[in-house]
């Protein structure tokens, strides 16, 4: 067992850091903050000219899609190397990694045409997905979803509604979970479709989150200021948009979601503010008082650091499972509980350390670091819900990790994800 990185991997990390130090200029940060749709800036979310150029430079170095096959626009590299690049960029608020519900699922379940059509463009950033899973009455109990796709000749006709379809307003496609058979048990009648956003009958309506105004600065934990409702009115798509086999979408969808629950971005949205507060504590003095000398602050910071290490080790374990071709279920769920809840504990503790200034949002002249800690306090709670709430994740750990039977409570559906 080796918990370290190889000398080559360490060299790559330094190279990426040097690249970021050289290329991430104040002008680019300004452009990124103007553009951000709140998810960490991904190359696929409407880019300005400077950000586009930055991504061209990143691509030139072969740092996009490292672990994907060369024939689909990748580098035939390994997952850990890709993780290192993702981690360094995520640290400065830039997403170079790909969501699990997307390229990895297409690679695993897609047809050859789908792999060729989607993966290179997802890697280059030309395409991006919004995740169309949750519905008004199907969230924790996702398998109860009612959105229907009915086969009509060589097409499917989709009718239904999705909630919290984050990024639907910027994405090129929606990665949609819909019911294709109403006569079988609920997990069995579900399929996944890759639906272009400009298909007639597809409507997007904004849902504003607690991060809405003032907008969170670049790098804030989660920080989505807009998510959406999405409506499908007789949306007709060819059968070639079906990902995997009809009625086998639950397995395909779960595989992608499990990957969404882990990885560099997930880990870093939960721990980046720990590093920021350590730097802030070290570098600030007020009328002879140094927070770095305060025993209560030192204790708290040490405690948070230990928790952050647990986040990191869980992430490395997930990456190692992926690298060795394994699949994880409850391991991802455990990580999806620990890291967001660590983010909540951290942001609360930091707000206490900073006192009233820690509650000032972006735009206030007295806000600490553009109010990032205050925005984080709100955003941290979001990450405990999306991609599967922490309660549902606990249920998965209990069932799949510990072998306990499914919980069935009066008036509560069985947790589905």
């Amino acid at each position, binding site marked *: 067992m080796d918990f370290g990185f190889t000398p080559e991997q360490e060299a790559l990390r330094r190279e990426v850091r040097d690249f970021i130090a050289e290329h991430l200029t104040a002008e680019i940060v300004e452009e990124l903050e103007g553009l951000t749709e709140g998810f960490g800036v991904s190359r696929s979310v409407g880019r300005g000219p400077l950000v586009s150029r930055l991504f061209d430079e990143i691509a030139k170095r072969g740092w996009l899609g490292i672990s994907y096959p060369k024939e689909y626009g990748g580098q035939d590299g390994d997952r850990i190397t890709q993780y290192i690049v993702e981690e360094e960029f995520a640290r400065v608020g830039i997403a170079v990694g790909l969501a699990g519900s997307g390229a990895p699922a297409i690679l695993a379940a897609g047809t050859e045409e789908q792999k060729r059509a989607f993966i290179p463009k997802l890697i280059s950033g030309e395409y991006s997905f919004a995740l169309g899973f949750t519905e008004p009455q199907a969230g924790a109990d996702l398998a109860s979803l009612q*959105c229907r796709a009915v086969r009509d000749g060589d097409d499917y006709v989709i*009718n239904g509604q999705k909630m919290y379809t984050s990024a639907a307003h*910027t994405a090129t496609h929606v990665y949609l979970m819909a019911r294709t058979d109403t006569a079988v048990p609920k997990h069995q009648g579900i399929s996944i479709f890759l639906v272009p956003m400009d298909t007639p009958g597809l409507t*997007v309506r904004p849902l504003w989150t607690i991060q809405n105004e003032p907008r969170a600065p670049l790098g804030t934990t989660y920080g989505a200021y807009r998510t959406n409702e999405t409506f499908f009115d007789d949306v007709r798509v060819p059968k070639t948009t079906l990902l995997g086999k009809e009625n086998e979408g639950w397995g395909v969808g779960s595989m992608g979601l499990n990957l969404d629950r882990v990885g560099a971005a997930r880990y870093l949205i939960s721990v980046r503010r720990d590093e920021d507060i350590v730097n802030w504590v070290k570098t600030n003095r007020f009328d002879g008082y140094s927070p770095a000398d305060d025993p209560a602050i030192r204790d708290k910071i040490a405690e948070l650091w230990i928790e952050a290490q647990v986040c990191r080790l869980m992430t490395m374990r997930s990456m190692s499972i992926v690298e060795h071709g394994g699949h994880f279920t409850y391991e991802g769920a455990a990580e999806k509980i620990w890291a967001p809840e660590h983010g909540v504990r951290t942001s609360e503790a930091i707000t206490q350390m900073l006192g009233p200034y820690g509650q000032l949002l972006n735009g206030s002249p007295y806000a600490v670091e553009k109010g990032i800690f205050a925005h984080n306090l709100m955003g941290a709670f979001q990450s405990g819900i999306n991609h599967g709430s922490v309660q549902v994740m606990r249920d998965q750990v209990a069932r799949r990790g510990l072998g306990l039977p499914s919980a069935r409570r009066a008036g509560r559906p069985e947790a589905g994800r």
Partner: protein
Amino acid sequence: MKATCPVCGKAVDEAAARTKTGETAHGAQEVDPAKGTRQFHGGRWVYFDTLGCRTKFMARPDAYPSLGGA
């Protein structure tokens, strides 16, 4: 077309809830959230006067058996 809100009984303008007000970055139509609301339930669209009505419905869909579906 006018629909009737199953919760408060008021008339809801279906067309207004669907009227295009803009377009997303990649071509989906956008609508104004203030212009009525709807939900896909039991295989068909149900229109509500307000989000409050929709929330009441979502909490107890079985209290409106005329709408059918699960």
